[in-house]
């Protein structure tokens, strides 16, 4: 039996579901679940196993182990995580660390506090997994980040020390070395640090996405 999460489900034929699932051992894959089993849903940790079948592997013995109850904006955050995984994760590649991070992130999002730290840690781990990781504490040449300097971020490369007077002409945001070091050392408390992390990680992820994320629209219901 393996532990799994459902990322997407769609009805298949009369009595089945086609599921996109996320596991530690095989990463993301598609399986078929019969409707006699408990109705599979997102934000639940399941136990189950699958075997080769005609079109897709057949899921058997599905059992819910834990439901993650996400409320308010955190419900949208859960959909954002699933969209990131479906859009970016290759199929059939073991992802033990990212799987663990996903579990921790869902656990964290159950609490009513600000979701930012959980989301940023997940995004950072996802980039590491995909091979586009970077260090908060080093620039792209491997030199230590200096707290008194400013940096701009280049996707797939990393941080580049930048003159604060030149950067506005480049129309790129500048990040204080102080904030980057706080993020890298795991002692980020100030909202400015998390705002910087959000900008940097968004830039890194958008570079990998062919089109904008749909889940971002959920955070602007007034529009």
């Amino acid at each position, binding site marked *: 039996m393996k532990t799994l999460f459902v990322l997407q489900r769609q009805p298949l034929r009369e009595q089945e579901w086609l599921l996109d699932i996320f596991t530690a051992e095989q990463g993301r894959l598609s399986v078929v679940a019969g409707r006699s089993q408990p109705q599979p849903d997102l934000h639940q940790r399941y136990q189950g196993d699958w075997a080769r079948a005609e079109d897709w592997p057949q899921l058997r013995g599905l059992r819910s182990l834990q439901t993650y109850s996400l409320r308010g904006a955190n419900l949208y955050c859960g*959909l954002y995580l699933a969209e990131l995984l479906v859009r970016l994760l290759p199929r059939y590649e073991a992802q033990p660390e990212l799987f663990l991070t996903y579990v921790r992130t869902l656990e964290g999002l159950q609490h009513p506090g600000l979701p930012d730290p959980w989301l940023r840690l997940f995004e950072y781990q996802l980039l590491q997994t995909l091979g586009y990781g970077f260090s908060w504490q080093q620039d792209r040449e491997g030199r230590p980040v200096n707290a008194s300097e400013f940096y701009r971020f280049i996707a797939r490369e990393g941080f580049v020390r930048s003159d604060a007077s030149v950067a506005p002409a480049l129309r790129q945001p500048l990040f204080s070395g102080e904030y980057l070091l706080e993020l890298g050392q795991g002692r980020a408390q100030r909202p400015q640090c998390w705002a910087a992390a959000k900008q940097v990680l968004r830039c890194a992820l958008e570079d990998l996405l062919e089109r904008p994320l749909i889940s971002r629209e959920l955070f602007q219901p007034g529009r």
Partner: protein
Amino acid sequence: MQLPAQYRQLIECFDALPGIGPRAAARMAQHVLEHDSGERLQQAILTARKTLQHCCCCRTYSDLSICPLCTDDERSTLHLLVVSGVEDQFRWEEAGYRGGYFVLHGLLSPVAGIGPRQLHLPDLKQRVETLVSAAESSSAENLLVQVVLESSVEADATGQFIEDMLAGFACRVQLLTPGQLAVDLQRARSFSAADHVPAGADK
């Protein structure tokens, strides 16, 4: 051996349908080529695509730009039921609901590429805005918007988004399960049987 391009294209089209895998797509392609039902299917798809459209008001399927339900003056304009599909609309109509509808044709599912725009939620917002203005100008009671969806994470997100989107409007928004609405309608029917008050599930 290379199969004809037209045959491969037909399989690809079936394979692209939700819930159809490549093997089932190949079986379907063979079936429509070998049987008369293929001709009927072709004609039904062409006719439906040519004649049907979304009602500009409730977005149900209609052969008119505005469907008969939305032009029915007898229906309550103080009740709006938001449902995920036309089969739900049919169900609640059969159960005696006599307010307005808005059919989403799905649920929010970013992984499937379905966001607020794909569900035409800005149109729902505009519809509510119009109904609220009409209710205010006639000094009637507040509009009641009931979002009735089966329970799931995507349904919860859809209901919550609609609730957030309508937060600034002078209307009440209720998120209900189908079971709750069924009980509501049953109760409304027992009250309204004698005096013809539209069963719009007032609480």
